[in-house]
């Protein structure tokens, strides 16, 4: 039986480093520990570097969890890049309404507060005529540091949310967005890859996910993108959705209307 990527990476480390990694991995949250062992999207050299950095952070006195997160932050977007010719034309994501309101407020540099941005998002949901709000909406980042996005693998020119349930619960289930509560309101953002300036799209890795417990490494080594694991229970038997990561990008390519989805 061939060695997993994790085992191959471990094999390339010194005995001392290997032992430190193994000792620390077992005290990480179970799912994070399993994700590290099951990772397939990282090149062995990058995986070794990630594990080595993990040990460096441990040596500086950080807890295993924090050491892992810090190591991950120096190994972002190491998954394979999707070729330009194969890039989806339309991408989308769901995030918390309050999260996006805060993003708009911060990029507005005092022009709008978070509460004002929140009210405006609620007011203009479903509208294509945003008036002056469009200026502020387009300046805001689609996500912080790293944007996780999905697309429709059957036809990447269409809105990926068209094939998902329109409900808060259905969207969270399909995209594997745990921790949601009934008080969380979602916003669905869909954007044109070309109008966003063609940011590189990568297959996600365990380093991109850090300690997020709902990430699952895709078992196929050669897959060009990742897959979500729908939340359990999944009464509608929603299938895993494609997922990619890209660098922080403004909403220049955002398609209107955006949608706010209440619980």
């Amino acid at each position, binding site marked *: 039986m061939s060695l997993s990527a994790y085992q191959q990476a471990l094999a390339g480390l010194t005995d001392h480093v290997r032992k430190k990694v193994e000792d620390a991995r077992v005290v990480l949250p179970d799912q994070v520990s399993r994700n590290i062992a099951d990772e397939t999207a990282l090149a062995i050299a990058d995986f070794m570097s990630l594990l080595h950095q993990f040990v460096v952070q441990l040596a500086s006195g950080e807890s295993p969890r924090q050491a892992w997160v810090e190591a991950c932050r120096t190994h972002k977007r190491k998954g394979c890049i999707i070729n330009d010719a194969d890039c989806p034309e339309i991408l989308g994501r769901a*995030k918390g309404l309050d999260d996006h309101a*805060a993003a708009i407020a911060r990029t507005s540099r*005092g022009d*709008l*507060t978070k509460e004002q941005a929140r009210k405006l998002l609620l007011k203009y949901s479903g509208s294509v005529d945003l008036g002056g709000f469009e200026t*502020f909406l387009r300046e805001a980042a689609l*996500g912080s540091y790293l944007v996780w996005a999905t697309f429709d693998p059957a036809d990447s020119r269409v809105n990926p949310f068209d094939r998902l349930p329109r409900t808060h619960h259905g969207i969270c289930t399909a995209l594997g967005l745990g921790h949601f509560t009934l008080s969380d309101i979602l916003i669905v953002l869909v954007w044109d890859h070309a109008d966003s300036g063609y940011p590189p799209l990568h297959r996600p890795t365990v380093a991109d996910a850090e300690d997020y417990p709902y990430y699952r490494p895709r078992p196929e080594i050669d897959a060009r993108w990742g897959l979500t694991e729908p939340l359990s229970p999944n009464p509608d038997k929603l299938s895993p959705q494609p997922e990619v990561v890209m660098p922080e990008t403004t909403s220049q390519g955002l398609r209107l209307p955006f949608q706010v989805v209440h619980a």
Partner: protein
Amino acid sequence: MSIQGLDHDEIRAWLERALRGQESLPLLTRDEFPHLGIVRLEKTLKPATRDSLRDGALQLVRQFCMDGRGETAYVQELLTLAAAFKQPEAVQMLARLADKFSDLPDISTEIQLAVLAALVDMPPPQSVEFWVRIFNRDPEKYAGLALSGVLAINPARAIELLPKMPDTERAGQATALKLDLTWDDLRPEQRYRFVEDIRAVLVQCGSYFAGPVEAWVNSKSKVIIGRVKTNESLESLGTALKKYLGEEFSPKVRTPKLCPDFCLAA
């Protein structure tokens, strides 16, 4: 992820790390701002731990307000969390800090704006005098947030500030959006006067700023005129029905819900 069982000081230290993104939090998405994970977590805590967390937030605000220093991202997270917790003591401390900005030249503009934005969003609101003082200190920098602060408590006084707003299209766009949100909160009978008072001061405003605001004023005038016409039509219809059906079928009471803007037609 649980902080149950930590003592008061440990919770405060945990909170500081969590605001810096260094603690595991129940985040909806991997890139969600940390304060939202803290708010989500707070709702699941036992009362004593929740009190310690809120008290810890207050202590961190107090610590920040001593000199106004801190990494921008951390301070933004702390102040947004404080706004979510709605703690009056935090409001008082931040208001005092804002009044001292000119004595604290080391505070970055971004942090100053974060303090003022938190004050706009947090109850209880500051006085008109407070916001006018902030506005006059540096209109280029503070005008947008100061205007928001005044609009929230006294829209009529806010209109007086419009001619002093920076003459940029962006300031005009932001102002039009804020006026629109204020309009939404006004009673129908107050809206006509609000719009007309804004129209009256537009001639004193810079042209770049005035453009988007004037466009908003015109759009609202159309809404008002449209409603007045609808009400006049309803009135004519009522008169015609009365003639046709006789006096006993005419409405005995005018229902405000059916024609809320009717008084504007008078």
